[in-house]
């Protein structure tokens, strides 16, 4: 009985473990410390975006603009690094821009009553346009100043053998977990997603919370943009295209309800890992690119269906 309960509660985790067992049976090079670090590093970008997305989805919203914010933040950051801006100044400016772009979406949602889907769809389009204008459609290099080397470490460096992006994603996870589970803000996020009217009558400042969650999502997308730019030592105008879909997939794979009010940040982390392991496995096993898409879609479908069935039998 206890085992069954645990299983129903943790379908995403079990799915991840099964996937990893299957892949390691199929390919010997999968099971190595190096490859695991490699998967974690590749997953860290999507995981960071998806954790911000989790906040928004918990309030029954959605944020389609993360991919564009990532590209914009990356471009701004690359040009600042390329102009020899002190590292911390560049980083905080970039994060602030991401948060501001997110807060703008949140304000449109709160004050004009626009559906989050529409508000962030508009954001996605306009910000992508801004990226193309800003970059003139060309990649921006981080340049050859001393600061560029330090900046590269954010994407390509290691601390005690662990890739820095993984460490950043870990810290983000801990902070998000704490906020959602141990602060008033977290409770308010869940309450708004559970029933906005109830939350309002309970004295929750619904507008402020909504703006904050979109700002968090924007800031984390910008953080992902920073890491991506650092890894490539340049910002791509097309960076982050369709990243919102991977992030939403990770959130949903993690068992969070798109209706809001229900879900866990740990689930999102696992969801991101499932996608990361899958990408890695398909490459390692040299699966033809035509089959890859079918396989990815199939796994996501399977996981979501299993999770739904687990929930309804409760």
């Amino acid at each position, binding site marked *: 009985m206890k085992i069954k309960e645990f299983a129903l509660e943790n379908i995403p985790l079990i799915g991840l473990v099964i996937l990893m067992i299957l892949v390691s049976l199929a390919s010997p090079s999968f099971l190595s410390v190096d490859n695991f670090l490699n998967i974690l590093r*590749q997953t860290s970008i999507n995981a960071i975006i998806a954790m911000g997305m989790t906040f928004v989805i918990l309030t029954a919203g959605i944020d389609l603009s993360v991919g564009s914010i990532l590209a914009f933040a990356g471009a701004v950051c690359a040009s600042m690094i390329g102009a020899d801006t002190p590292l911390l100044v560049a980083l905080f400016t970039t994060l602030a821009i991401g948060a501001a772009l997110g807060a703008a979406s949140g304000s449109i949602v709160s004050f004009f009553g626009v559906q989050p889907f529409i508000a962030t769809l508009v954001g996605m389009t306009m910000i992508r346009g801004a990226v193309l204008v800003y970059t003139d*459609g060309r990649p921006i*290099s981080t340049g050859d100043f001393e600061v560029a080397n330090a900046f590269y470490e954010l994407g*390509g460096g290691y601390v005690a053998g662990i890739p820095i992006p993984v460490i950043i994603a870990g810290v983000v996870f801990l902070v998000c977990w704490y906020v959602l589970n141990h602060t008033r803000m977290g409770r308010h996020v869940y309450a708004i997603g559970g029933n906005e009217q109830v939350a309002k009558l309970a004295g929750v400042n619904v507008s402020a919370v909504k703006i904050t969650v979109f700002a968090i999502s924007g800031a984390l997308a910008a953080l992902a943009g920073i890491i991506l730019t650092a890894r*490539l030592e340049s910002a791509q105008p097309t960076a982050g295209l369709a990243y919102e879909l991977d992030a939403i997939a990770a959130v949903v794979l993690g068992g969070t309800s798109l209706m809001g009010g229900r879900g866990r940040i740990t689930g999102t982390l696992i969801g991101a890992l499932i996608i990361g392991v899958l990408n890695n496995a398909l490459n*390692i096993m*040299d699966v033809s690119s035509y089959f890859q898409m079918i396989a990815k879609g199939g796994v996501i479908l399977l996981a979501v269906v299993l999770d739904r069935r687990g929930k309804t039998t409760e």
Partner: protein
Amino acid sequence: MKKLLRLAVATAVLVGSTTSALANDTLALVVSTLNNPFFVTLKEGAEAKAGELGYKLLVLDSQNDPAKELANVEDVLNKKIALMMINPTDSDAVRSAIRAANRKKVPVVTLDRGANSGKVVSHVASDNVQGGMMAGDLVKKMLNGKGKVVELQGVPGASATRDRGEGFNKSIKEATGITVVASQTADFDRTKGLNVMENILQAQPEIDAVFAQNDEMALGAIKAIQAAKRDIIVVGFDGTDDAVAAVKKGSMLATVAQQAGRIGSIGVETADMILKGKTVPKYTPVPLQVITK
């Protein structure tokens, strides 16, 4: 009042058509976009050659929008032109534009990107298959006919992906000592090139060379290879500024560059031959160029 207006419009049209009744030496060039340096170079090549051969050249920019493209073609067909060269925004969407030219009996030459329907006298483009072979030949030479090779493919199903892959594999197969150990897509994207290469590096302890079907993927792969501290030669495709810089720096072995200017000039030469009644081949390949240090 209405009548007056109609009269005015009619006069304007009449005057317009007479003043723009151009001689038989005018060529039109409809370009998919002039926001991209590649097509600007293409245009410049065509302009130079047109001047040389004594043609007037009308250039229109479709701004990557098939609707704008159709409008451009309709406009230009109203201006008595001898021949239309078109660089389509999309091989399928260009169909009605080409039909319009066919109806007016204006010969059409497509540049760089082909058309899937409609009557086209000749198609002028870089030979992607040949480019792939050039990359393959270079890899063969560098490895002395022996080694392990990775291929990074473009967007699945795109014609560039098919042609470049076909040429490369054709060339590589001639050397029995070379095996392609992984062939994965990275969607012509730099980030994906990095991620996919990292994964392949995990799976393959021995890699001697990488052929990426465009420079973006090649630049991503180079980051992965540098981070893994492995010694692998990388060949890209397109000859973008970043890639040429990487070749100069030595981190990339070579890039196979299209010669945009020559696509434009060969296009005008082909037009010239058509107008002089000579027979031209259905497809004129424009040679590519391997850029090395």
